[in-house]
């Protein structure tokens, strides 16, 4: 460790996300910190979880960290190199889809866990245009569990999305089902401050865990909407074992964890 702290914000985020992954899960992963979380889970708590990319590679041997989901590094030693249409079918299909947990990023999230990865401002003439859905809308539509990875800022935790790219609980309550979607969408939000979940009945985000040194108040200050913090407790910090495996086995060069 190069800082005086026992762990960095990126490290605790990664460990918190990794703890969401169960043994046997199929982890739909992007690149960067989401992939690191998937690798950490596989090395720490879910040895038989399977890393899976929307481009169609399953259980690749990641000798080097890929920088994109089409990086040739994910094609090496995979169980199968298939097609886009196959990989999304694996998630849309309930038999396999039920086992998938996705890790997603977003520019904005709302209280119902809906995500925006498309634009800031008007869709047709935006202030800032982002990359768009990619597979985000698909996986959020299909699978029962998604983790959203976000920096906890007011402009990102917004009352109203500028564009609803990937469905969470939509308007809350039964609205996901009414729209024709299966149960699913973002089920946990992991930020640099804490971990949020969603109330089963209302579909609204609540604070589940705040990190050591962070208060629920600080989290509310960085959230545009009003969020229930009444059930929140302090998160168990990363253990020595978790940190050791993350640092030594998953990202020894700190390509993603940074210095």
């Amino acid at each position, binding site marked *: 460790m190069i800082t005086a702290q026992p762990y960095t914000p990126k490290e605790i985020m990664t460990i918190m996300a990794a703890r969401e992954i169960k043994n046997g899960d199929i982890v739909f992963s992007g*690149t960067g910190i989401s992939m690191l979380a998937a690798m950490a889970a596989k090395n720490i708590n879910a040895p038989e979880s399977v890393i899976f990319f929307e*481009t169609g590679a399953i259980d690749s041997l990641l000798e080097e960290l890929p920088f994109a989901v089409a990086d040739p590094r994910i094609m090496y030693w995979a169980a199968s*190199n298939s097609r886009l249409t196959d990989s999304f079918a694996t998630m849309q299909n309930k038999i396999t889809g039920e086992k998938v947990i996705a890790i997603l990023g977003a520019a904005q999230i709302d209280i119902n866990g809906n995500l925006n990865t498309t634009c800031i401002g008007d869709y*047709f003439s935006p202030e800032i245009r*982002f990359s768009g859905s*990619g597979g985000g809308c698909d996986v959020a539509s299909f699978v029962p569990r998604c983790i959203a990875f976000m920096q906890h800022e007011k402009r990102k935790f917004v009352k109203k999305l500028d564009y609803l790219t990937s*469905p969470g609980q939509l308007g809350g309550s039964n609205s996901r089902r009414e729209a024709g979607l299966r149960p699913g969408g973002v089920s946990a939000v992991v930020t640099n401050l804490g971990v949020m979940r969603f109330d089963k009945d209302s579909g609204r985000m609540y604070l589940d865990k705040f990190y050591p040194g962070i208060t629920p108040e600080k989290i509310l200050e960085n959230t545009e909407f009003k969020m229930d913090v009444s059930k929140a407790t302090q998160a168990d910090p990363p253990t020595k074992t978790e940190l050791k495996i993350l640092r030594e086995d998953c990202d020894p060069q700190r390509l993603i964890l940074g210095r």
Partner: protein
Amino acid sequence: MTNHLNKVMPLKQAIEQYVKNGSHISIGGFTLNRNPMAAVYEIIRQNIKDLHLYAHSNGTGLDELIGAGCISKLEIAYAGNGKAAPTCIRFARSIQNNEILFEDYSNYMMSLRFMAGAMGVPFLPTLSGLGSDILTKWGFSRSMRKSDPKIADKKLAVIDNPFGDWAEASKVVLVPAINPDITIIHVQKADAMGTCSIKGLSFADIEQVKASKNVIVTCEKLVKKEELRQNPDLNQIPFIHVSAVCHVPMGGYPTAVYGHYDYDSKYLRKFAIAAKDQNKNQDKFKKYQDKYIYGVKDHEAFLAIVGQKRIDAIKADPRTGYSVNMKRD
């Protein structure tokens, strides 16, 4: 289509013959992998305009085409180019400046649309996107759709499941087929007839090819028919779908071609820096284009400017298919 035996021609000729102003086009690959870059640069050099591009997640090729002003309409799921450009720079700029007409889909929707085209059906169903703005925000208006016979009347349609709650679905999204005028892909191996073997992930290349009225294949290796016939299981594209075959070694550069070379992260960053040019005159970006695209006569000349040093640096390791321990910025 009648002459199945020899479709080999120079890339310049293939682009002249099959890519016209206003063509509806798709290109193979995904973000920084296996884009048909030699063909993309040739399209730019031939100054072909007003293209309608169908993309799922083409990164490098897409952004060069938009940067050169070749694209006027775009249907797309994702525009990112890895670490160098998490959002494609010229793509974002063209939308922010209202320079192109665009319409957003998800990756699966775009893949299904190509697949529908390949299957010869008007649409395919999915459970994706219900409740999202992808369903409600249409980039192309109904009147524009009506007036253009190459564009479906609707962006998509939502229907009640005609089989009750079969497959636990109450509603289904139908996405319309795409049949591009021309698709261009870059593959590892092709023969003169046009049979192709792709190594590693095929993305949506196979569906794009089969959906297209015409297909140009550029290849790293132009091999004898006999070489491909020895293992038909590895040939994803039979010759019957292909119009032209162009032998262009390193034709995917600066994107990666599995088993041959890695992406050139240095070049991608150089492009990203130039593309970010905020200057009104666009001097930096024009300088980039003049040097690497307009200033060379073909891909070979382009590679000569890039230099052997970069090419050696990204050479794939035979065991892993990528460049091991390559410095990536």
